[in-house]
């Protein structure tokens, strides 16, 4: 399996939409074939359309807020005494996380498709919150599917969705988390695909949703590569881009512009949810040698049993609590362009504590997993190594969990 240079990674699939002949595809019910095909044609047209690109850039700049800050974490760097630690503070984007890019683009596409209804899934509630914001901005009716367990643990984002006029549909099946929300949302789309546009909240699902999402979050590295060159005059000799991965949308956006660099120069590290210490319910298919299976319409490494039943996972971070992973990340793993590891709940909590103690940013539990890896490796690395962490979400939504686990008020 090989990754090619000069071609966006999302386009490196074969005619069956498989990456490396092994990951992705469209394993969908017949009913969805046509809507998926229509959306594919529409998106391929739009991404080549100058008018549409102008529109996207306009909203990214004036609505999302571009560029998001790129800052050095001096105190944390000094405390750890090794590599320099930097952050791309994507949490500064409108709404407080990277999910706004995908949501905005989907709302624009929904308008172009002439549909008035938009539905989406959410785990941490950011994808749902952003979709409800974008829907409100563009005059669309919005429905969000969310696991009952997640509704409980991410209340601030649920409040935001309701305030934006979206309907939250609680999902009580299975583990009552993101995996069930995505299934329920897809089922809803099967029944309503003639009137309704579907947004998948991460780089998972049938191929077109992976593409739209990664194409949207790519804004992160489009900004970052400019900021890095401004800061250092060039791309540093030793750079590490660390990002948490749930479905993998923020990581793919954070890495996209750096894909063609040699991995010895720009290393890409994905951090999965290791779950509670000593638990076996890791939501970490890439770092636990899961087998390839089919989930939500795509072949991918997925946590499953021998019979192909999708397994329950657990993580303190609702956004990472997903048994599957983007087929594109599977491709990056097998081609060895990226390396994947995991952090436990406890490590993420500790990282959150340390970062907020030393710095003026407050990463949510998802990026706290990425910080945990940075904290682990930085002391062992030389001072000219530049670690950049994507601080892709704000901890406001985690206030209840943080209070419970750390006795902390934010």
């Amino acid at each position, binding site marked *: 399996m090989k990754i090619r240079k000069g071609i966006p990674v999302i386009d490196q699939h074969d005619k069956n939409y498989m990456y490396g002949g092994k990951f992705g595809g*469209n394993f969908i019910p*017949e009913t*969805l*074939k*046509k809507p998926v095909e229509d959306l594919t044609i529409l998106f391929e047209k739009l991404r080549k359309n100058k008018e549409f690109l102008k529109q996207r850039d306009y909203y990214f700049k004036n609505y999302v807020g571009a560029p998001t800050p790129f800052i050095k974490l001096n105190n944390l760097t000094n405390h750890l005494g090794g590599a320099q630690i930097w952050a791309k503070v994507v949490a500064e984007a409108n709404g407080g996380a990277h999910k706004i890019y995908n949501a905005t683009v989907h709302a624009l596409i929904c308008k172009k498709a002439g549909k008035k209804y938009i539905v989406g899934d959410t785990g941490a509630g950011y994808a749902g919150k952003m979709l409800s914001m974008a829907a409100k901005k563009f005059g669309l009716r919005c429905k969000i599917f969310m696991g009952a367990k997640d509704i409980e643990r991410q209340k601030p984002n649920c409040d935001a969705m309701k305030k934006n006029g979206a309907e939250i549909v609680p999902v009580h099946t299975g583990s009552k988390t993101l995996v*069930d929300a995505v299934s329920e949302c897809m089922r809803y789309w*099967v029944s309503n695909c003639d009137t309704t546009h579907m947004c998948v909240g991460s780089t998972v699902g049938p191929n077109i949703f992976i593409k739209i999402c990664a194409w949207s979050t790519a804004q992160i590295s489009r900004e970052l590569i400019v900021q890095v060159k401004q800061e250092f005059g060039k791309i540093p000799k030793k750079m590490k881009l660390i990002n948490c991965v749930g479905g993998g949308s923020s990581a793919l956006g954070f890495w996209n512009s750096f894909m063609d660099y040699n991995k010895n120069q720009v290393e890409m590290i994905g951090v999965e949810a290791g779950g509670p210490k000593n638990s076996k319910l890791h939501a970490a298919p890439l770092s636990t040698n899961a087998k390839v299976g*089919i989930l*939500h319409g795509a072949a991918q490494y997925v946590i499953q049993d021998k019979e192909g039943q*999708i397994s329950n996972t657990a993580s303190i971070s609702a956004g990472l609590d997903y048994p599957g992973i983007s087929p594109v990340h599977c491709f990056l793993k097998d081609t060895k362009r990226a390396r994947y590891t995991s952090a436990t709940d406890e490590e993420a909590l500790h990282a959150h504590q340390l970062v907020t103690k030393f710095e003026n940013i407050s990463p949510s539990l998802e990026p706290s997993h990425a910080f945990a890896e940075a904290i682990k490796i930085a002391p062992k690395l030389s001072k000219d190594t530049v670690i950049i962490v994507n601080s892709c979400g704000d901890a406001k939504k985690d206030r209840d969990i943080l209070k419970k686990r750390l006795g902390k008020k934010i």
Partner: protein
Amino acid sequence: MSLIKKAFQICKKEKRPALLTFTVAGDNTHKNSLEILKSISPYVDICEMGMPHNTPVADGGQIQNCSHRALKNGIKIKDIFKITNQYKKFKFAKPIILMGYFNTIKQFGEQNFINQCKKNKVDGLIVVDLPWPENKNFAAKCKKKSINFIQLVAPTTSNERLKKIVRDSHDMVYYISMLSTTGGKLKVAPKKIIQNYQKIKKLNKNKNVVIGFGITEKTIASLKKADGLVVGSALCKSITDSVNRRKKPAIAAKKMVMKLKSKIA
């Protein structure tokens, strides 16, 4: 000739549509699901049996309930093959079609799965999330072992696709009546459904085309022009109700199937 084809021929002679049922393997127990099949068989022409999957993208609430119950009771693929094997020894046994999601087959191993189907007298397969053309390879492997791979067609299927799907189909084509997961209320006029059905028949009248999704005691008669009609969620609901009342699901299922049959015979 395949047993599936033969079943349709018998119905044609009797000038009625084939009655196809859908129940979930292992619901609510291994034994009961076999009992259900046996009790309904005298009135049914083809039995579909669901292989429960825990993240189904096209099943409505009723079938999800049954699948959940079956999985909770520990049903495994080898049990499903055992059920078909035991069922096929029964004197009123009808052709049996297993229906499920591709990951079940993928993890079992495609060829291994087909071999087990053959060995346990499974007549056909429906794989919900393996549409045409993705299913070409697998369908060919099924054909080699004389197992019917059943193609699905939906209201959203384009004419272009339809032609190719019908061309590549085996003895039976499954028309999904409306945009819905299983168990939805029939939201399209029966007349319209029959029109779409006839569009498929026109392409090749030798293919047996069945209609499914949203068919209940109330709606079944209005669609009886079709070669076959599938009742799933309505039957699954009667099983669930019976299980919840601690009654015998095989009796409830039989009652319902007799009623369904009386409406189209």
